[in-house]
């Protein structure tokens, strides 16, 4: 692709905040987004911004007792648009942003900080019941249904006596009909575990040698196609999830980038082969995945095994000197995304020419 046809990443709006921001998410069907973090005084904050006249307007600021680490709109309906958040004390709350004084749902889910959260079944994505999954430093991964109080619907925890490892990231996938669903969890020692929620079993596990910072399926609501796992030491792996070999597991291709921790990966909602990775040196890389000629082949014993494709870099930019901790593509506008970084900035980016790829 010549330089003129390559997608360009434009920093459309940049805003400095007066708190540490951990996560940012678009509010579906709108030009608004929320940022979550903590003030220096140790309280949590959620701010609601809207894009107006080429700048950001603060619509609402909500302060809560405990710092908020992560949030998602994934399990809410399009009309309600409730935000589910996980905080430093292990509480899971679901907030109605129009009336944020009392949470719609609240549970002390974990003993330690909730590092990561994901939702499925809302917003018209994923068949079946809306569910939220949280992963925590206490080593457990719990799946919640907002209709069931106090108890999770599924709990993935280490066996008694085993060392518990921090769970750093979780992702839902394979939600193509009402029964099927998988949860993939990444831990700080490099473990990736794939739990099948329909038969409540561990479907696959592997270890990528470095702590897993972020996991994402390319689309939550189709039969598992690809899984991207990013890790420390500047590597990420793309697994082809269509063919599982009984011993070798899933085929994968790995790539080195960013020269430091790859903090986040986000697939473009409008094209599952494109994804953006955010790095510890404040850089963003836009990648495209290409499928191999044959996605599966038979090994020497005649058992099917997958063949991984290849990843190519489309564009890269450096936005800051501090790690970019979170990224989110807008589900409504192709190419619009927000990112937040540890230099207390939130940026709205436009990526051009994505429809041509």
């Amino acid at each position, binding site marked *: 692709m010549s330089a003129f046809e390559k997608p360009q990443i434009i920093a459309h709006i940049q805003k400095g905040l007066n708190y540490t921001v951990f996560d940012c998410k678009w509010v579906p069907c709108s030009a608004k987004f929320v940022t979550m973090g903590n003030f220096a005084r140790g309280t949590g904050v959620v701010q609601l911004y809207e894009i107006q006249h080429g700048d950001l307007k603060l619509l609402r600021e909500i302060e809560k007792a405990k710092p908020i680490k992560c949030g998602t709109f994934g399990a809410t309906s399009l009309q309600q648009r409730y935000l589910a958040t996980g905080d430093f004390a292990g509480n899971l709350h679901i907030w109605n942003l129009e009336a944020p004084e009392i949470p719609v749902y609240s549970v002390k889910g974990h003993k330690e900080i909730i590092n990561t959260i994901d939702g499925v079944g809302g917003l018209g994505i994923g068949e079946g019941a809306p569910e939220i999954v949280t992963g925590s430093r206490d080593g457990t991964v719990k799946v919640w249904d907002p209709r069931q109080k106090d108890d999770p619907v599924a709990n993935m925890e280490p066996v008694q006596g085993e060392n518990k490892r921090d769970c750093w990231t979780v992702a839902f996938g394979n939600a193509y009909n009402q029964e099927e669903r998988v949860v993939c969890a990444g831990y700080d020692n490099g*473990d990736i575990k794939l739990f099948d929620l329909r038969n409540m079993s561990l479907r696959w596990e592997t270890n990528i040698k470095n702590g897993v910072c972020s996991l994402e399926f390319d689309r939550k609501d189709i039969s598992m196609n690809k899984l991207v796992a990013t890790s420390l030491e500047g590597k990420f792996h793309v697994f082809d999830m269509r063919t599982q070999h009984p011993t070798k597991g899933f085929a994968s291709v790995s790539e080195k980038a960013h020269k430091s921790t790859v903090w986040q990966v986000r697939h473009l909602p409008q094209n599952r082969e494109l994804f953006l990775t955010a790095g510890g040196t404040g850089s963003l890389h836009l990648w495209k995945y290409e499928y191999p000629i044959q996605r599966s082949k038979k090994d020497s014993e005649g058992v099917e095994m997958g063949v991984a494709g290849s990843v190519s870099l489309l564009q890269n930019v450096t936005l800051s000197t501090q790690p970019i901790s979170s990224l989110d593509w807008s589900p409504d506008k192709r190419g619009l995304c927000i990112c937040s970084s540890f230099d207390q900035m939130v940026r709205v980016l436009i990526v051009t020419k994505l429809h041509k790829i």
Partner: protein
Amino acid sequence: MTAKDYPSFWGFGTTKMFKIPVEHLDFKYIEKCSDVKHLEKIFCVLRSGEEGYYPELTEFCEKRLKGLAPESRALRKDKPPATASSFTAEEWRHIDSDIKSWVSEIKKEDEVYFHETETFPAMEDNLPPVRGSNSRLHVSKEKYSNSRPTKKKIPRDYAEWDKFDVEKECSKIDEDYKEKTVVNNKSYLSKIETRIGTAGLTEKEKTCLATREKEKGNEAFNSGDYEEAVMYYTRSISVLPTVVAYNNRAQAELKLQNWNSAFWDCEKVLELEPGNIKALLRRATTYKHQNKLQEALEDLNKVLNVEPDNELAKKTLLEVERDMKNSEPASKTQTKGTRMVIQEVENSEDEGGKDSGRTHKDGSGVKSKSSLLFWFFKNIPFYMMSWLKFSSTTRILSLSNFF
């Protein structure tokens, strides 16, 4: 000459980074060097400016590296984000106005849609029940124990080799190759619902849902999963039938060679939008494969009337004509004979109609003598043409003497 041949006296004559001999930082050396890894190291050293600032040498090295290994990681540069200056004035205005119009549009929708519905309808009744409560899943840290590999079939000692049957093994291998390696997990296809319940959804939600399913179908099509693509297009149509979804499904059915299903999808499109070019082209293809060549011709001509430069139409037309000649029809023919290599280009599409560039050659570049003459005689009244078709080649050749 490699780097190892040069003696390194404690950093004398070598660079600090990577210990490359200083002599290698030279135009002539870089030109001759074809070791990509070594070139990458040289490039890193030059770029870092440790040994001095040599812009032309750095650029030369970059070009050489790009020529040898365009995908090399060393070529990646840290750059700041693009700004208005990276685009032409026209492009920038376009990007700017695009985002502004989207923002105002979505704000309007937001106000209209969400503020009207103050009381939200109870959607909970439609949801499936809560998953079987409180199931615990204990995960041990042990890896799966690797089962001992089964005994190899290859014979190991002389006695076994005597029993080895070469012919049988060869035929077994041949059979394995003949089997198509199909993606294994097709069982999920039967588990996907073909119809989506749309009770209680507003028009806007239905459009969103239908578009999502269609996009999923497009993605499956682009990665070669045509059955999956058909499934998603069917789902999209069950929510909200649209011309694009029917058209795309027709294309996917063509790839699966389900001519009849493709035909009915094209019919549906033409019912909703008569004169849709893609539908006409695809219907012509289904006719061609079902041997209804006359109808195929009519469709193709309709297309060419609207778009005389349509490459796909012209190529399909040539194929149809060739097929017609090979069979013995009594129908009239109109030919726009042009000499072209026949290539079938299948496009995948989204609403923007982009090409995915998946082409496969329909290796028929054979030009028979009669097709040559058709091209030559295109102005002859068609009763003569039909007569010519029935004659043998030798008679056509003899006729040519009269003209």
